[in-house]
């Protein structure tokens, strides 16, 4: 069911990309997302594409796995491509079929936009594929640190995120268990008119909420028993450290961006 979708899924590994500091990864991806929009010719697109492909190769996650995992996004990419073929009317007419004229400009632009879209998705999914959710949380906490000065609850936000992450599998199991219990009592979640199916969700949602509240209450008590008093005076086991490799990768990325700006059309 969810093995088709890889966005948000972490694939364990020990590649260079896996080991990079998550803050560095987030920064690079953020910049990449911006700079993709500056590419406007074959050379500049090539540079970014090569960068993306090499990065993917370095992760050692099989290309096929990633491409297959992006299935739902492929539809969007192809849709974008076709849309451009129909809408854009620039350049020379390549051929005409049943009154529909295909322009060279449409082909080029459709291809460029689809490629841009693809690169964006690929690079951002590499973040979640190579970074555990908790590392992303740590990175966000660290990067938001300056906001503490304006009383933004950075620690609480990060704790909330990490507890949510920790409980996702637990709640999924619970959902499965309760839906099976209700199915055994004759609830049909799969067939029947929409209205009936919506009604069938109540016996699932109520127990889930009840149990989630109970868990929250018990968890709060367990945290208090273990001395939790908020973010003040806490030390941290998890520490992010910029290593030489991070600096190296960042420099490499700056070169790529420099290449992009040198080759693009003005």
């Amino acid at each position: 069911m969810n093995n088709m979708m890889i966005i948000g899924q972490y694939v364990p590994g020990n590649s260079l990309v896996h080991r990079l500091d998550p803050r560095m990864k987030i920064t690079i991806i953020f910049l990449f997302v911006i700079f993709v929009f500056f590419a406007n010719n074959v050379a500049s697109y090539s540079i970014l594409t090569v960068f993306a492909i090499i990065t993917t190769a370095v992760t050692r996650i099989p290309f096929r796995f990633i491409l297959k995992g992006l299935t739902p996004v492929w539809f969007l990419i192809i849709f974008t491509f076709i849309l451009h073929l129909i809408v854009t009317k620039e350049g020379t007419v390549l051929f005409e079929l049943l009154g529909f004229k295909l322009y060279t400009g449409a082909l080029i632009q459709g291809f460029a936009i689809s490629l841009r879209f693809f690169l964006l998705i690929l690079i951002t999914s590499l973040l979640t594929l190579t970074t555990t959710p908790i590392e992303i949380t740590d990175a966000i906490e660290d990067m938001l640190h300056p906001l503490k000065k304006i009383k933004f609850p950075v620690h609480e936000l990060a704790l909330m995120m990490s507890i949510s992450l920790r409980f996702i599998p637990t709640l999924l199991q619970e959902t499965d268990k309760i839906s099976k219990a209700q199915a055994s009592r004759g609830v049909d979640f799969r067939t029947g008119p929409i209205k009936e199916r919506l009604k069938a969700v109540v016996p699932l949602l109520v127990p889930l909420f009840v149990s989630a509240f109970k868990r929250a209450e018990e968890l709060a008590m367990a945290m208090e028993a273990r001395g939790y008093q908020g973010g003040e005076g806490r030390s941290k086991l998890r520490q992010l450290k910029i290593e030489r490799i991070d600096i190296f990768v960042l420099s490499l990325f700056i070169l790529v961006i420099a290449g992009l700006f040198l080759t693009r059309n003005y």
Partner: protein
Amino acid sequence: MREKFIEFRNVSFRYGDEQPWVLENVSFEIYKDEWVAIIGHNGSGKSTIAKLMNGLLYPQEGEIIINGLPVNDQHVWEVRRQVGMVFQNPDNQFVGTTVQDDVAFGMENRGVPREEMTKRIGEVLKAVRMEDYLLTEPHRLSGGQKQRVAIASVLAINPNVLILDEATAMLDPRGRKEIMQTVADIQAKNEISLITITHDLQEVVQAERVIVMNAGKVWDEATPREIFTKKDELREIGLDVPFIALLADELKHNDVSIINEPLNHGELLEELWTLHSKM
């Protein structure tokens, strides 16, 4: 005379003014390095006792003293450092995203430096035999393993008392055995008082002393051997008696003279053997 560590003085507690009393005039003492089992049917007030012991609840009447400190707002954080607690549901007390994060949680709360934390994590995980699972996520652990991590998390802050509040109730027999083995190891190695709140007769038999709760009151307080002589009374308040104690009792009804109260197979067989060789 052993050193007092926990003292309940005429403690009464209820959840609200309109609610019935959960505990009524409860007094007892627990000594340093002692192993005490607290038993009682569901709703007899035994879990409330645990929560009172580390200031998760405060009594309306009476006083609770932990290692000379009264449990109140002023001392509650020190009390919580000294009194570690493991709860019933293995899932709802696992805070960290991995085993090592969970063990670190209590130390982080107390500002323990990072190097010290790493060292302690290694030590306590070894003590509960979970050292190979440092980076494992909770949903890949069995209930017994999660509870062992919970015990390690508590041990990491060097408490003087470890309370297991029905910590084995949701585990299968294998998980139970793991926990009881772990706990016995820890008690043997460290100077720590142990309080197990439980229905499991095997756990009760292992304790030095038993406090039996019924309807919010201390019903009895004695060694397991003494407690299990009161079979019918225990049954009446909804508790069970070990198989061996029952068998010994039946044997007595059949004119087999059992003199000591046996608590395990070895003891009963020994008695029978003595009888047998005398015949």
